[in-house]
Every structure is written in C-alpha cells, then in structure tokens.
C-alpha cells in the first residue's frame, strides 16, 4: 500500500552553490513540524546538503540547470526528501555509491552518498545518463514526549 502523504513542500532552484544553504535550511524548517532532536535535524541538513551539492557540482558541471527539491511527511512521522536534476546522469550508480568514489578531483571527498546512506534510513538513486538523477531518502523521526 502506498504510504499516506500528510504534508509536503516543493521548490525549484538554479544550480548555484549559494543555494546549498537555502535548500538545507528550507528542508530543516519543514522538518521542524516532526519535532526532531538537534542531532536528527543535523543529519537531515547534512544529507540534503550532500544531495543538492551533487546536483550543482556533478549534474551540471559547466552549465546552470534546474534542481527540484521535495520534502514530504509520510504516515505522520517519516520525512522523505527527493532531489532531482536534469543533468548528465550517473553511468554506474553502484560504483558512484562506493565510499571514496569521486569524479570530482581533490575538491571532493567521494563521501557524499556514504553520508546520505548512514545519516538517513533509506537512500534510493535513480539515474539515466544524459537525462538526469533523482535521489530519494527518508528518515523516521521518533515521536518524543513533550512538556515534561
């Protein structure tokens, strides 16, 4: 059965590196309704930063392109985030997800996917060469008892 969406935001931005901070900030603001801990919020911001940075750096290496970020609340307590680009795509997703694999040279670490994977509960990467990439990740935010 498809999980029920209880809330969502969608925004589009140009692949400028100045938008990395906006994207992670916007998703963090949206995530606040799930009452995450500071650590959970840090994990979410980091994962979003990695995905959006990849779209900026790798999808559109020498052009500016469209990036669409969607964040949804599923079934009350799951935050699902997708980052989509229409850039050059990833020829071998399995290889790209390996720790330390990078096509970005000395400025990159090759740890982006590894961080997304370990900071979130799930990570799915769909990519078609020359068409683009969609990264979808989710994290359950454990409900906390408030007002103690």
């Amino acid at each position: 059965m498809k999980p029920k969406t209880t809330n969502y935001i969608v925004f589009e931005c140009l692949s400028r590196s100045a938008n990395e901070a906006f994207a992670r900030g916007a998703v963090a603001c949206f995530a606040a309704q799930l009452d995450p801990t500071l650590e959970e919020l840090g994990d979410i911001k980091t994962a979003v930063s990695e995905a959006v940075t990849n779209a900026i750096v790798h999808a559109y290496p020498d052009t500016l392109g469209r990036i669409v970020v969607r964040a949804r609340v599923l079934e009350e307590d799951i935050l699902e985030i997708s980052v989509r680009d229409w850039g050059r795509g990833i020829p071998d997703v399995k290889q790209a997800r390996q720790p330390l694999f990078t096509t970005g040279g000395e400025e990159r670490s090759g740890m982006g996917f590894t961080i997304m994977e370990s900071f979130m509960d799930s990570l799915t990467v769909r990519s078609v060469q020359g068409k683009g990439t969609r990264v979808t990740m989710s994290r359950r935010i454990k409900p906390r008892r408030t007002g103690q």
Partner: protein
Amino acid sequence: MEMKYRAENRQLTIRLSGELDHHAAKDLMDSIDRLLEQNLPVKTFLDMEGLTFMDSSGIAVVLRAKRRMEALSGSLVVINIPRQAARVLETAGLNRYVELV
C-alpha cells in the same frame, strides 16, 4: 563562513566559523594554502569550534590541509569539533588519517 588565524613560533591556528559547505570550501582551501605558504608552520591547528554546519566538503578541506602540512614535514591537528561536524568526519573514518581532538 569566516576564517581567522594566529601564527607564532611556526605554529599556526586557523579558526573557522559559520557554515562549511561546497560553496564556502573553495575559497577556504585557497586561503589555507596561502596561509601555509606564508607561515611555513611545523604544526597547524584547525579549530572548528565556531562551525555551525559542515558537510563532506569539510572532509576535502581537512585532507588537503593535511597533505600540505605533510609536504612541509609538519602536522595537522583538528580541534574543538562540534557534534554535527564530528559525525561527518567519523562517517568518513577520518580519525584514521588525521588527529582529531
């Protein structure tokens, strides 16, 4: 992202504050390169206390500074790492390559 530094007795301390992402990393790498060339330190401390956010771009910054220090036959120590940045560095297993305090 802001950077301040203090150099004395061939010991260099670089203090970072703000958000260290890919947007900030390129300028920061250039600034650190320049500082190392000017001061030729034998020991460099990278003080992260003021960082409010860091993603994997910070890993590349640390590794590059480490390589540059090794080329000078010196060493790099990363100090005062906030919790969120520490999680990123630990996930990358950086503690095996760089002294993190």
